[in-house]
């Protein structure tokens, strides 16, 4: 959120046109959306005004997102990872890491298959819904009918294909949001069940942080499905009313997204940055522990942590001539025992014993 006057860029830089990072990001995003919609709707001739509420909601969401993201990115440790992560983005392992972290959620699989299943259902339910709704809201995708019974699918103003109104693609298009709603509802129910039964979850959860986003997702999905139900079985009775409730729930969820538990969605790509950072700098120069000499982290990360702690006025330099971040974990613990007892435990070359109890 800092003004760009502090940076020493040349006077002609585009950054000087804006009061802050936030203003720049916001302007460019809204401009981008406007241009895309201009192209997608064939110069605003195919805007679905029924969805204008979502459009306004999305723009408010973008405002909140940038506010939260930029405030977070200004924190010294986050800044380091973002900066170095972007630099290291084109590593050979990036596609695999990205797939494992952002698509298959391998680390959640390792936390439990049940948790992985619920996360896949909710995650992909939401992501697929976004792929359908945002193009519809901004007019990037719409349907026209030239011949009776045949739909043209128009994407970004280009007629992509013509499909039978009874065909499988058309059916999938009509029901895409119904399918994703069922995915999300199943996933949320699994999560709620776990949160009610699992002792570990019960120990840590709070209603506002852990349950509220689930309830919002459930509300969005159920009201969305109710729209379909009303159309198909009630001849549209109550549909205008329900569509407003649905719209309200979606917009509230969107605006809330960057501020609560759901904020992990836009922040998650940083885990790819973190993995690249660790791998790259570990290959470049591993750091030997100042006491036992074992490699335990990269020189880069050790220095970065020391600097980050420095910006927080935390200084762990010791009179022995090392910073505590230069000791491997067992040595750092033994060093602490040495401070307690006065006997230099960390100098004794014996491996730590019996540190793991099996629960």
């Amino acid at each position, binding site marked *: 959120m800092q003004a760009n006057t502090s940076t020493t860029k040349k006077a002609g830089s585009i950054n000087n046109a804006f009061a802050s990072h936030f203003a720049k990001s916001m302007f460019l995003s809204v401009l981008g959306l406007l241009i895309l919609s201009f192209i997608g709707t064939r110069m605003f001739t195919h805007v679905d005004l029924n969805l204008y509420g979502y459009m306004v909601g999305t723009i408010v969401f973008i405002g909140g997102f940038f506010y939260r993201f930029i405030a*977070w990115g200004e*924190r010294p*440790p*986050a800044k*380091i*990872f973002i900066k170095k992560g972007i630099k290291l983005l084109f590593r050979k392992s990036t596609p695999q890491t990205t797939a494992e*972290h952002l698509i298959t959620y391998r*680390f959640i699989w*390792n*936390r439990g298959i049940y948790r992985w299943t619920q996360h896949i259902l909710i995650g992909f339910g939401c992501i697929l819904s976004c792929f359908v709704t945002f193009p519809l809201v901004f007019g990037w995708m719409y349907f026209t009918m030239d011949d009776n019974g045949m739909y043209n699918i128009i994407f970004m103003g280009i007629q992509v294909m013509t499909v039978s109104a009874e065909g499988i693609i058309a059916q999938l298009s009509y029901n895409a949001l119904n399918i994703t709603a069922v995915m999300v509802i199943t996933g949320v129910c699994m999560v709620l069940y776990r949160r009610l039964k699992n002792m*570990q979850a*019960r*120990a*840590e959860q709070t209603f506002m942080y852990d349950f509220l986003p689930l309830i919002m997702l459930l509300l969005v999905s159920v009201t969305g499905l109710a729209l379909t139900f009303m159309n198909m079985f009630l001849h549209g009775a109550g549909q205008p009313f329900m569509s407003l409730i649905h719209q309200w729930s979606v917009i509230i969820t969107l605006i809330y997204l960057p501020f609560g*538990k759901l904020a*992990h969605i836009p*922040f*998650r790509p*940083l*885990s790819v*940055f*973190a*993995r690249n950072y*660790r791998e790259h700098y570990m290959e470049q120069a591993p750091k030997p522990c100042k006491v036992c000499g074992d490699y335990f*982290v990269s020189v880069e*990360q*050790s220095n*970065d*942590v020391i600097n*980050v*702690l420095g910006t*927080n006025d*935390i200084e*762990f330099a010791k009179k022995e001539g090392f910073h*505590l*971040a230069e*000791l491997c*974990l*067992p040595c*750092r*613990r*033994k060093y*602490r*025992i040495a*401070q*307690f*007892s*006065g*006997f230099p*435990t960390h100098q*004794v070359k*014996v491996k*730590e*014993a*019996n*540190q*793991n*109890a*099996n*629960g």
Partner: protein
Amino acid sequence: MNKRLYLELENCIGCRSCLAACTQCGGHDERNRNYVYDVNPLVNTQTMPLMCLHCVNPACARSCPAQAIQIHETGAVLSALVEKCIGCQNCTIACPYGIPKFDTEQNLMYKCDLCIDRSKDGIPPMCASVCPTNTLQWLTDEEIERKQKQFNVKNDKWVTSIHLENETNVRVNLPGILQGITKLY
């Protein structure tokens, strides 16, 4: 009523009950988060426990790029939030006591949270509730002060408050009689 964890280090007999009890805490996923060290291994039997001291200004949380390490209103520094932890391991490098553990499979850091489900309601953490030798105790500030007075040996050599890197919520003490500068067991 506000109680803290209080360590009388030299009482430790190395039974590792605290490690076993730690695994059984509701939020701990059957993995212990504390340590017991031999002070002079292979020479004598003195051991000392080491757990998160719950710094007032925790280096782990300051170094976390994802704001995953939260500080509870009781002062306990919690394990990384599972959805936020990005697995960079900055916290393990930053911690002056080497406490946070990291699970590479789950890409997740975990550490002592003072059994927050218990301690937030005034119930002692698992380790303190099982320690057979009163090495780990759950005391009010007044009780800790009384103990420190009791153990304050006025021989100009022994100070009851051990020098730590920073201000911590857990209080550590070595209530012994100092003989020379190095303590003998």
